[in-house]
């Protein structure tokens, strides 16, 4: 049996807004195997960042179970949760906004160590901070600099060092390289890959960048309006996208090559509002294959024919199986 570090069952997160109930995450299920990377992709507003935060209980889920190493962490008390944070960490998107501008690099990286009482004395703390800086490739001379003195790539390395400081097993990476230039982006991605191998980390990698997610992930889950529409191993998803939304999404990627010719599935219209969504498939209104049953009932996430690890939520695929 696969060794799953995390399992999410029927996870929901709804927000009350003036206009009605906003279904940010609406009943998603998935598992992640230890040491692997699950990429979550989708466009703005699809609920991917909310999913990451709900899993870490930075936001309280409305419904569902979050099972980390066999235990439902939604039942955890505040104190239990605090201890669990040593094992689950997050790297934020914006290296310009996620670091306290009034703290030095060593204070930022050392703060979790102090809060969790990981070091006996100052010397041990400094030694550990220096070790972490080495791990992520930050020169030790930057120990006493402030974030504003550093470029985006270095700042993101601070964010990574901070996330690693407590020796976590599991890290949610929320668009960790989206704010960086391509050459720096590649440096940071390589670093994250090396750390995963070295420390046996499990990642949830949240991004809107499909080329990056394919390169980086073992499995990919595609989200649309709060729901998972397709989940498969990375190469299978790109080779054989099955959900109409996945097909459109993949065909919209501008590929930096003259040889790459892919038939474009043009999507009309824009993403609908997640506030009080109508029943049925969320994508039906933009889907060129939509049929009457698509708007009447919610599609389930089911296995695609003869592929036990490829799941899709679409009535058309469902119909083919009957």
């Amino acid at each position: 049996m696969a060794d799953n570090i995390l399992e999410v069952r029927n996870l929901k997160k709804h927000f009350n807004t003036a206009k009605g109930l906003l279904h940010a995450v609406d009943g998603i299920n998935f598992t992640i195997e230890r040491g692997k990377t699950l990429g979550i992709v989708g466009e703005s507003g699809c609920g991917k960042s909310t999913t990451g935060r709900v899993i870490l209980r930075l936001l309280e889920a409305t419904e569902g179970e979050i099972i980390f190493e066999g235990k439902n962490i939604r039942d955890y008390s505040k104190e239990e949760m605090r201890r669990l944070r040593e094992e689950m960490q997050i790297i934020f998107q914006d290296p310009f906004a996620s670091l306290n501008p009034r703290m030095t690099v060593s204070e930022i990286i050392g703060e979790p160590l102090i809060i969790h009482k990981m070091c006996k004395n100052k010397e041990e703390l400094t030694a550990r901070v220096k070790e972490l800086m080495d791990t992520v490739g930050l020169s030790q001379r930057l120990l006493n600099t402030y974030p504003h003195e550093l470029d985006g790539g270095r700042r993101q390395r601070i964010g990574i060092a901070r996330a690693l400081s407590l020796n976590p097993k599991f890290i949610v990476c929320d668009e960790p390289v989206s704010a960086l230039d391509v050459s720096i982006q590649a440096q940071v991605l390589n670093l994250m890959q090396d750390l995963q191998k070295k420390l046996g980390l499990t990642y949830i990698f949240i991004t809107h960048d499909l080329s990056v997610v394919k390169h980086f992930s073992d499995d990919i889950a595609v989200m649309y309006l709060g729901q998972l529409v397709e989940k498969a191993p990375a190469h299978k998803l790109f080779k054989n996208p099955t959900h109409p939304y996945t097909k459109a999404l993949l065909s919209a990627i501008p590929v930096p090559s003259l040889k790459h010719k892919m038939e474009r599935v043009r999507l009309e219209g824009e993403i609908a509002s997640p506030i009080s969504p109508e029943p049925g498939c969320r994508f039906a209104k933009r889907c060129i294959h939509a049929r009457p049953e698509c708007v009447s009932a919610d599609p389930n996430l089911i296995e695609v024919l003869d592929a036990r690890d490829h799941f899709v939520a679409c009535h058309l695929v469902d119909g083919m199986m009957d």
Partner: protein
Amino acid sequence: MSDKLLEIKNLTINYTTEDGVVNAVNGIDFDLKEGETLGLVGETGAGKTTTALGIMRLVPNPPGKVISGEILFEGKDLLKESEDDMRAIRGNFVSMIFQDPMTSLNPVMTVGEQIAEVIELHQNVTKSEAWEKAKEMLELVGIPGPRVVDYPHQFSGGMKQRVIIAISLACNPKLLIADEPTTALDVTIQAQVLDLMNELKEKFKTAMVMITHDLGVVAQVCDKVAIMYAGEIVESGNLVDIYENTSHPYTHGLFGSIPNLDEDIERLNPIKGLMPDPTNLPTGCKFHPRCPHAQALCKEKAPVTTTLNSGHRVKCLAYEGLIKAPALTGNKEVG
């Protein structure tokens, strides 16, 4: 007269700041024919946006200053035009799309008023004619005409960028400068906007300078490409020159940094190091501290532009025969 719509010669732009002189654009040359699209590619701080502002004569002064060069638009040097003439040229003959659709529209004017404003300013029309034209423009970019009375906040990001495209094309300019027009948009919306821009470009025969950091977008939209690094164009040519006969080590590095959808690679092959400080650029070739093929001479001697075949130009000593040429041709990883 030549058939060139835009010709830029030796353009140099500096910003004087407290920390010293920022050498933003350092003697670049390129040209553009009618209806052609040039992709200006580079990373943050390469000088792409300053180049665009230079063409529009919108470089903030102070601190910015065009030090030297010529910007010939239909044979006339824009740098020698009076401010009044320049106002007539902007929007009418040359127009610009800015990066961020969220902040480049006026939040207290309806989109109709904002489109009509340009038309009234540049064309001899009445208010109601301008309003009608605004409606037409809006429909042209795929937004229902009755929405002219709506305010920017009532539109999504993709729709706002369509409104900006409508404004920029309202007077049928000959040259459109688009500064990262789709960077802030989601991929499916980006695809819609790029399709729209391609369509309109064909329809109006507008020449375009497309500023972007995305080599994927360039492959879809552009006829020619210029790669910028530290204020210089290090390589330029048509799509085949750049994508299939990549010659400059920096261009190679850019391709190596992007995950490729068609091939699986274990590790990316990024450029080491960081962009140089523009107040203190390296001597010799500006890329030498990051270049995997750099040799002693690269530190001392600045390369000049070498033409490889008609149109494919590269700025690297290896092509001047001064250092041993690295085997760079072809878009494959270099050893």
